[in-house]
Structure formats: C-alpha cells, structure tokens
C-alpha cells in the first residue's frame, strides 16, 4: 500500500497534498469492475485505479487525449463542474443494476460540492432505487476560500445521507487503512445489492486550492501548521517503522524508484506531441456531419501554420 500511496502522492499534484490517504484508500478499495466519477483533485484515486501518471499529465497539459485511458476504460473523465458527476454515477449504477452486474459506482466530491443540487439529487436517487453507489465526500475543510463551517450548518457531511434515506459515516481520512477498510466494506455491500453508502473522509487540503490560488489570503498559518503534524504519509511511515514492517533503507529505495517512475512519466508526457488542429473535429460526433465538414477542411488546409 505504501508504495502505491507514495506513488500516488508523488504522482498527484501538490494540490492534493494531505489527502493522499483518502485517495489511495478509496482507489485501492475499488475493484477494476467498479467505476470512478472523480473531480479535478482525485489524481491519487485515478492512479490507484489504473490511470497512468502520463495520462494525467497529458490532460492537465492541455490535451484531451489524456482522458483516453489505456486501462480503467470505464472511469469518467475529470468532472470540473462541481457535483455533476454524482448524477452520472447514479446513472451508471442504474445500468449495473439493470444488467445485474456486481459492480459499484464511486462518485467522489468535496465538502463544497455537497451544497449543490446535483449532489443531493444523485444521493436521493441512489436511495430511491437502492443503487450500488458509494459516495465519497472528501472533506478537506475548504472549498477554495470557503471553510467547511460556512458551507453548511449540517453537523457532518455524513449526515446529509439522512435526507436520502441512506447510511452515512465519517472516517479518518488521514488513516489509509481505515479509509481502505470502510470503502471496501461499503463497496462489497453495494456490489452485492446492499445499496448505497455515503462516506466522509475527514482530511485537510495542505496546499492552495490550485496553483492559481493563494490560500494565505484566507487561511492562517496556525491552522495549516496544526495539520502538518497529521500528515498521512509521515503517520503511516512512523507506524510501519514501529511495526518493523518498513525500514529507512526501503524508504530511500522507494524514493529513488518513485523518482525514476516520475521522470519516465514526465518524459513521456513531454514527448507527447500536440494534436493536429483539425482533430478538434474528430470526436465531436461518431461521424462528422456534412454541415461541419467544410469547417474541418478549412482547418486541415490551414494545417500547422494556424494563427487563427
């Protein structure tokens, strides 16, 4: 687990620092048959579920090809419009049930996303049809600059499940073992027809919301430092070392290994050429309608020299 976790951590961007245990715990609990519906922050879950670091880099590098996964064929692309993926997951779960497949849908969203209608509508639907859905609300205490306390007066995000008549629970999101355990059980339950569960891993966003953000504008160093102490990686390492299940040598070796893996991915990513301009018409429809053929041709004509 630690290997994957660290790989996860280093594979993900800084902006999910602090949430590695939640991500890897969820990703490892999921089976290859389960389907992920993530946001822009769930790199660790993607990696643990078979998406490659290179693919993630290619997408965030500005090329849709990164979302054309080699593995994890059914996983949804990053959902940037907050909470919209929750209803997609309900639809996929409906399909699993319709086909009597033992699979679960895993919509992942943040604490901020719980304020949006789509979150609630999807949750309510899962309750109505007893869908194989495990809702992950990764509560990292912040939605950009809005603290959890101002997002909802609901005592816990887990309690939002009551409104949909489904079970909800909190878990220590910085304890990878606990997260893995709770999600594994909820997923087994969902796959075997036991219905949906909402799980709220409690964790913390250690970095700025994104590289475009400056969290110092709205949150204190004190708060940040308190959470530094709870770093899930340090925590796991300390534990494993105490258990003699892990050694500093192994740790160094792992760091080297990871460094190498990252360099490979980064190189693969950097070696990925941008797509040809006219390819923006490729996947618009299964076959491009005549009405747009002219536009695509003119673009093909312009070719590389295109300056708009």
């Amino acid at each position, binding site marked *: 687990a630690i290997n994957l976790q660290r790989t996860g951590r280093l594979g993900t961007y800084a902006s999910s620092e602090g949430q590695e245990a939640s991500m890897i715990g969820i990703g490892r609990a999921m089976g290859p048959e389960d389907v992920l519906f993530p946001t822009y922050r769930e790199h660790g879950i993607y990696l643990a579920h078979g998406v490659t670091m290179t693919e993630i880099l290619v997408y965030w590098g500005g090329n849709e090809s990164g979302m054309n996964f080699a593995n994890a064929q059914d996983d949804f692309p990053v959902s940037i419009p907050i909470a919209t993926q929750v209803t997609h997951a309900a*639809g996929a779960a409906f399909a699993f049930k319709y086909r009597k497949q033992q699979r679960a849908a895993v919509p992942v969203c943040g604490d901020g996303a719980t304020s949006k209608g789509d979150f609630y*509508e999807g949750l309510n639907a899962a309750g109505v049809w007893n869908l194989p859905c495990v809702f992950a609300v990764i509560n990292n205490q912040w939605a950009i600059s809005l603290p959890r306390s101002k997002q909802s007066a609901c005592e816990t995000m887990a309690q939002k499940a009551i409104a949909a008549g489904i079970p909800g629970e909190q878990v220590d999101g910085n304890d990878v073992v606990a997260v893995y355990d709770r999600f594994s059980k909820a997923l087994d339950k969902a796959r075997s027809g036991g219905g949906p569960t909402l799980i709220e891993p409690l964790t913390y966003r250690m970095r700025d919301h994104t590289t475009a953000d400056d969290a110092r504008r709205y949150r204190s160093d004190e708060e940040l430092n308190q959470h530094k102490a709870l770093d899930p990686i340090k925590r796991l390492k300390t534990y494993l070392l105490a258990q003699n299940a892990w050694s500093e040598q192994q740790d160094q070796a792992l760091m080297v290994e990871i460094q190498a893996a990252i360099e490979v991915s980064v190189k693969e990513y950097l070696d990925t050429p941008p797509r040809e301009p006219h390819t923006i018409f490729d*996947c618009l429809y299964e076959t491009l309608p*005549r*009405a747009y053929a002219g536009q695509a041709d003119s673009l093909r004509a312009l070719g590389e020299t295109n300056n708009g």
Partner: protein
Amino acid sequence: MAELTLLDAVNRALAHELAADENVVLLGEDIGLNGGVFRATDGLQDRFGAGRVVDTPLAESLIAGMTIGMAAQGLRPVAEIQFMGFIYPALDQIINHASRLRTRTRGRLSCPMVLRAPFGGGIHAPEHHSESTESMFAHIPGLRVVIPSSPARAYGLLLASIRDPDPVIFLEPKRVYRMLKQEVVDDGEALPLDVCFTVRPGGDITLVSWGAMMHETLQAAERMEGEGIDCEVIDVATIKPLDMETILESVQRTGRCVIIHEAVRTAGFGAEIAANLAEDGLMSLFAPVVRVTGYDTVMPLHQLEHVYMPGTDRICAAVRQTMAYT
C-alpha cells in the same frame, strides 16, 4: 398501416425500440403507470416492465445526468422532460457533459441518449408550458436537435434519434400531438437525420419552417397559390446539424425566402438560416429574407397566446411583401 396522431407515432416508435433493443430504457416523470402527462408512453410500462420504463423522482438535472451515466455504460436511455419549460435545470448536464463526453475522452466514452420534450404553445397550457427555445440547443456543439412536424416524421425521426450514437434533443410540437392523423407504417424504418424535407415544391418563393409552424406555413402556401404565388415549403426537421444545402439550392431557384418559427425573434434559429443566406446565398436573393416569428416577449398566458403566435395572416403578408420586390 394505421392512422396515427403524432402522439401515437411517438408511442409506436418507443415501443418498437424497446422491443428491438434491450439497451433501450425509458425514464422520466410520470411516464410509467400514468403513461406520461400527454400519454406518449401509454401502456409501455405494462408491456415492458417497470425496469425499462422508469418513473424518476422530480429532478431534471438528475434525469439528464443519469442518462449520461447510463449511456456511457452502453444503455440507450430515452428520457422524457415533461415540458420544455422544465428542461433548463438539465442544461448544465447537456452543455457541459452529454454533448462533449465523446470529445472529452477522445472517443473512449460516448453518450447515445435522447431527451424528449414537448414544446411550443397553442394549447392553452399554464405558464412556463408553451415556450420554444430550440435555438439555445442548436448553439451547443456535439448535439443533435430534431423536431418532427408530422406523425410520419415523428415516427421515423425518433427511431433514428434513438439509434443515433450521439446525444439528441428531440422536441415534440405538442400542439400537433393530436391535431391530425396520418397513415404511418410501424415497420421500424427510420428517416434520415441531418436533412431537411421539401414538403411542397414551388418555384416562386421558399418558405422554411419546422415543428408546429409547418402547418400555418403550409396553409399560407395554399392561400398564396390562390393568389398565383407558387411556394416551395421546407421542413428543416433537424435544426442541428443544419442542412443548408437543401435550403440554399431552393433559394437559388426562387431568389426569395421567408423563415417562420414560433420562438422569440431575437437569436431564434431563423437567424442562423438567414445569416447563411446572407453569406452564401446573397447573390441569388431578389428580396430581403423575412423572418416571421414570435415577438420578443415572454410567452403570454393563454388569453393572449394567439397574439404571440405567428399565424397564416402574418406569413401571407410576409410572402406578399417579399414577392413585391422585382
């Protein structure tokens, strides 16, 4: 061979696809036991079961969002939005996801879904039940927007829409639901999408319309014949993607064009057709391209609904005005 209303035709097409493809699933509000508020799905839950004709909770964004997840898993969801006036909560899902799932994943995932919605005025429905906002959907890349105007086209175009590998917004002119009956063969034969239908050949002027307004347009063409004006009438049918070739070919012959739609004028879909004529057909135009449309007002409640709706009088006036140019 049977005499069907547009509503019957929709029902037959849905039944045909439910029977033909087990991936087809119907979902929406009150479509099950109740058979839909207009009865478009009447009897389908009895026949195909509550597992395939599914009543949803009251949530349009959920309905649209679910169809995306279902479609990505290979189902062929056909969702009903009870009235077009209630489709807006679903727009986010349509714009940001359904229409671009294929693009966003470079073809790995796709979204073969149909969203059906009754639209348009003229049946004295309550507030918010009578608008026509098809042009908003025509502005969304990756979508198809299909509008039948007769029972036969409703049957054939709905079959084609359900079988289409990409998302389709299928707008049903509710004023026509029970307006007329037509011989329709329930043989599973689809009609082509992405093409206009020339429903009346003529040499003097081209009238372009779609949906319920096709009927006022055809009536106007009849009247004009009495005045010795020979109108060609085109039913656009698929407004996105738009088959301008058929329209251009016609206007190049007639040199005159009147576009008729029920939607509000400003940024209505008539503008797109007129703009294409101004760019690609200008040199063959003898007269201004006139749009006969709903006014730029909120759709009035039913006492003044008829005032808003373009009628044959306004269409005929536009035709005469256009013919006056020499």
